[in-house]
């Protein structure tokens, strides 16, 4: 079943993430702390990009005199 395969692949990726960042060795509450910090920082970066990217792109195009 395709969904089962995707789930297996995703959990393998999560396992690799745990191994590389050494979260594998930490207790569950420490993993929660680290994951929430990471997700909040990433979320804030995405939100900032979403809010400010149109303005930045217009400013760049204005600088290169592509649009007035």
């Amino acid at each position, binding site marked *: 079943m395709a969904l089962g395969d995707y789930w297996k692949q995703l959990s393998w990726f999560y396992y*690799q993430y745990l191994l590389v960042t*050494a979260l594998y060795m930490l207790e569950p509450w420490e993993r929660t702390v*680290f994951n929430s910090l990471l997700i909040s920082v990433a979320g804030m970066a995405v939100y900032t990009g979403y809010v400010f990217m149109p303005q930045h792109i217009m400013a760049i195009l204005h600088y290169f005199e592509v649009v007035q």
Partner: protein
Amino acid sequence: MSSRSRLTKMTESSANKLLNGDACNRTINEKKSSKNGFVKSHCLFQQPHKYRRTVEKNQNVTPSSSLYKKPFVESFEETPLLVAVLTYMGYGILTIFGYLRDFLRHWNIEKCHVAQEREEQKDFVPLYQDFENFYTRNLYMRIRDNWNRPICSVPGAKIDLVDRVSHNYNWTFEHTGKVVKDVINLGSYNYLGFAENTGACVDASIEVTQKYGVGVGSTRCEMGNMDIHEELEQLVARFLGVESAMTFGMGFATNSMNIPVLTGKGCLILSDELNHASLVLGVRLSGSTIRVFKHNNMQSLEKMLRDAIVHGQPRTHRPWKKILIVVEGIYSMEGSIVRLPEIIALKKRYKAYLYLDEAHSIGALGPNGRGVVDYFDLDSKDVDIMMGTFTKSFGASGGYIGGKKELIDYLRHHSHSALYATSMPPPVVQQIITSMKIIMGEDGTTLGADRIRQLSENTTYFRRKLHDMGFIIYGNDHSPVVPMMLYMPAKIGAFGREMLKRNIGTVVVGFPATPIIESRARFCLSALHTREMLDTALQAISEVGELLQLKYSRHQQPHPSLEWTSEDSQLQD
């Protein structure tokens, strides 16, 4: 001093003659010396001229190929850059969480299981604040279940482990009462398979126990010198090809208690970078000046010898009383074999002494199992002090030192171990006597020769297969110690646990024993491992390697290989 400062141009044939100790034709060259007195281009072993940027560092640079009768292939593949960066990142995250946990423990938010100073001592110099203790509390404890696993059977090719479980993240363990049976043992130092509970060795030990008892009750110098000790020492001397030998009850103590007897103040000790803790302890206890040369690097050693002879002792510039080179036969963390022919050529040229610690190589290397000297087909009279242990290949415990008769007679009266430590128990002595006779072939069977051949075949097969699978393996192609690189801290714990799930017991090694990013899993092969066991083990290692993404090696993968054939065995019949 003048004969040492005469500079000689060495050719290949004269290098050979030097090895045999004959006089060689000397041609005097006038070369101007540089400002610090070090004259280049007259060394025995030159630096290679071209700088090659290759993936492998320290590949077999053998400038004097006439000294080596067989090809000497060692490889220590470089750490891939991405892996190194990710490893440092992993250690960084663990350090941050370590500080967080220490903070919680300090403010008593969390219960502290670890040793702490008492209230009255809090104003003194702190005991547990250095990096070693931080590492132990916060990194080692989390994966501690991979070490100190209790064993409840003989440590042969298969082993039984006591099942244990931890409910508070490895601070305390409980035994469930069950036993994990028939775990393939890739961790014990059992190179020739003499750690067994049936057979000729055990029967002889039982007889001797019934005759002499188990304890000795005294030191060698007082009342602990039995006739079997004398028999053992003569046998060891015959085995090694030296004039005389002496045995001690403990291998570690052999090194740390005897090096202080041999050297003292005013002597120079040149020891390898990666020497064992017992050698380092003995060398420090002796009080001599210690200089460390790069691991297995003959140019570094030669430069140090030349500087020592030219400049003498540090402030007074008097000549050194003795120069002792301390090396090991096989380095167990790297799997590398010492470059013995080159060291002997250097030692003869610069008139230094050589102390060779054959803890891992005795019995495991060489066509007759006589160690590194046999492997390189050299004369054992060239090595001044041959030391070794009985733990690894003979299935017993204890150590020996072999050499000239005057040296051993001196040691008998002056060694700290002989004066103060109890001598070897009789069953252990008999185990060594029986196993040594089997290896030499004196018991009438071919068991010894068969086991040596089996170990060599296992080594070649296992190393070749692991290399083909794409793992990074360190060391010489003929050494039975196989270190496989893991690098990342989480993979140390994951590898040990996954292998145990697949019923294979391995030893993983991390920081204090290895550099911080180069953690590894170390496999020790044995003559008792059959082809099926090795195949099972290799299959499991490959699975775990895929699961944990351990196949870091960047050389080309060869063809799906041809079956192992008997021509691959390194032994000649």
